[in-house]
């Protein structure tokens, strides 16, 4: 990809630009296994495929043809992942989510004694000599989040319970 950047730097006038855009300099194809050398792409066994499907709670392929198609697709995807992993990311913090990561934001988000003073005020110390902390157990008002029909979308229910049919874990 650095090749693209170098080429772009050399663009000086509109004519050059047209020329540059006329032909692709790089294709996502390069990250996919070439059709001729299919053997290079990672091999996945039928067993591994079924294991992955089970982990993902996905249905097993209906026939051998469908299974082969899945294997080929997965193989191509893994080849792609392999190529992506060639990029040297040492020293780069992985991106988990887009957030304000400035020092000021961190200070703002820090959970301090002040943040929790209300919660700490709901504790009491019991005992005259052997002093212990006790959270006062009083009524928690959570109507704002609990006041909805929890079982409303359930396909099966029994009284106040959700009902699930499932086999016991294997012995």
């Amino acid at each position: 990809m650095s090749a693209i950047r170098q080429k772009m730097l050399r663009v000086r006038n509109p004519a050059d630009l047209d020329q540059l855009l006329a032909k692709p300099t790089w294709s996502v194809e390069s990250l996919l296994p070439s059709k001729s050398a299919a053997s290079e792409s990672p091999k996945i066994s039928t067993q591994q495929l079924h294991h992955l499907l089970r982990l993902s709670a996905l249905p097993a392929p209906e026939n051998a043809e469908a299974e082969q198609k899945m294997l080929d697709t997965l193989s191509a995807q893994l080849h792609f992942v392999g190529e992506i992993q060639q990029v040297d990311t040492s020293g780069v913090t992985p991106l988990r989510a887009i957030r304000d990561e400035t020092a000021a934001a961190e200070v703002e988000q820090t959970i301090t004694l002040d943040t929790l003073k209300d919660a700490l005020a709901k504790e009491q110390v019991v005992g005259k000599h052997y002093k212990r902390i006790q959270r006062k157990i009083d009524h928690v008002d959570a109507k704002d989040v609990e006041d909805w029909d929890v079982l409303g979308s359930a396909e099966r229910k029994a009284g106040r319970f959700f009902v699930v049919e499932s086999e016991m874990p294997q012995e």
Partner: protein
Amino acid sequence: MLNQLSRTGHATFARRPYICQECLRRLQSRHIRSIASPAPAWIRPLSTASDDRTPPKEDAPFRKALKDAAKKKRLENRGKAQSSDNPSGSSEFKSEKWELTVGIEIHAELNTARKLFSSAATSVNDTPNTHVALFDAAFPGSQPHFQRETLIPALRAALALNCEIQHRSSFDRKHYFYQDQPAGYQITQYYEPFARDGHITLYPHDFPGGVSPEGGPVTIGIKQVQMEQDTAKTIQQPPSTHLLDFNRVSHPLIEIITLPQIHNPVVAAACVRKIQAILKAVDAVTAGMEMGGLRADVNVSVRRRDSADSSQQSHSYHGVTGLGQRTEIKNLPSIKAVEDAIIAERDRQIDLLERGGIVDGETRGFTQGSKTTRRLRGKEGEIDYRYMPDPDIAPVVVGKDLVQHLKSSMPLLSDDVIEMLVDPKRYGLTAKDAGTLVVLDDGDRLDYYLEVVEILRRIFSEDFAALSRVGKMAGNWVLMELGALFKTTQWSADRVSPSELASLIAHVLRKQITGRTAKLLLAQKFDGDARPVDQIIVDEDLLLRPLSRDEYLAMAQQLLEEKSDVVRDIVEKGKHQKVKWFVGQMMARGAEGTVEPGTAEEVLRLLLQLPPMEEQRQQMKK
């Protein structure tokens, strides 16, 4: 061994952040990209403690005889084991040859008002599915809201386990499909837990009978403590119906992970017991194991202690040696189950290995009362959790001031309390009594005891001899006498107030009432007699009248006349120690507690015309 190394190496990769698990699995057969191999984490040097077990040469014959006898017994037992399914008879011999290693994971329900990622209330026995926010039910589009106050008990627990609180921690998703978990993943702290590198020390008082199986204190490292969500409560209706209550979904939990540094089932049980007590002491949890508030998983492996086998001494320790293949036993519901499951699994693995088999890395289960563990999932069925950082939850940043505050306001922990109670200069209790006081009634009994002692100390502030006894004396009355009365009913400090008990004990210490009278008085107070102890003693004329000197003399005279043969032994044969026998007789004859052994001996010696024995009298005073 090689296989073991590559497995552990692989496990270490799996713990590294952001490496795709599927790719990792494939790494074993094909390369996608080579990754430098870090040192396997589960390797530790073979313990040198086994060196000490090598017998000194000189007592070899005796030791050999013992060994041979043990071997014979083992062979017999093995014959039996195959038929009677009880291989544990030879475990003592086996533990000489095999070293057990155990690591523990403890899940504890935190004592919080609200759930971990919603402001829905926590609850124990409320109407099913009444405390569920949209996010708790994994309703599409709902978002997690980390409840910051759930950190309070979590931080206290970690601090009490001597952990280092991490300035920054974060949450990850652990994927698996099961009906008790609506999102298809559990939110936990896999890559960046909030606390690391703690430890717990087990002292002799932490073991049943006050004896550590390792001789002295045992310190076990705590690898990390992490916060995570609980799952739904399931009520099974056989054969295959499950009723689900989501009230418990996302109740905050902490998972405490110890290092594999435990080598004895008794130590493992003591470790779980102590962690439970510590969590309770800092109010981090509401319920113990018996109420389902705490669950434990154990990792068990065994390996040969080749060093203990003198025939193999040439195989000296070449630095690092790995542990044996481990199995995990999940969801142990009690401390007894922890100990029993480890014993059963240890014996199963040793038996398997001695018969030339191989231990598979698998998940096993244990039913309380059972003698064996049973296989739950094999390696091929093992779940791959596909951990990933949860993008919807911001990292948790904990301020230093908060940690400092929680540290400085930490309640006294049981080790400190016990140390204080057994100190002969302070309370002088036995370690056993001290340990009992700490665990009874959530600490209320201990507080009561301390109050009783304080009042007694005020009463006897001038009397040093009595002062040195009040700690032990009060311990006895609070635990034994009052304990017996409270055996079948809930403890209450108001039933017999501390000042009334102190008054009672003071009367006994001053020998104003007999022990038997005091016990009856206590029962009377316990049953609701509203009069003060002083009043009852006066009303019912319970005060002991000390014997006069004439009464002592009369009693001694009569006794000496009755037992003239013993008198002859003393006077003619010089068996002066038999005076003590007479003292005992006098104490038995007088009303309880009325005969002072010192005065009795003095009077006896006078009548027998023996010299008073200073030395002995001093001993009596002690």
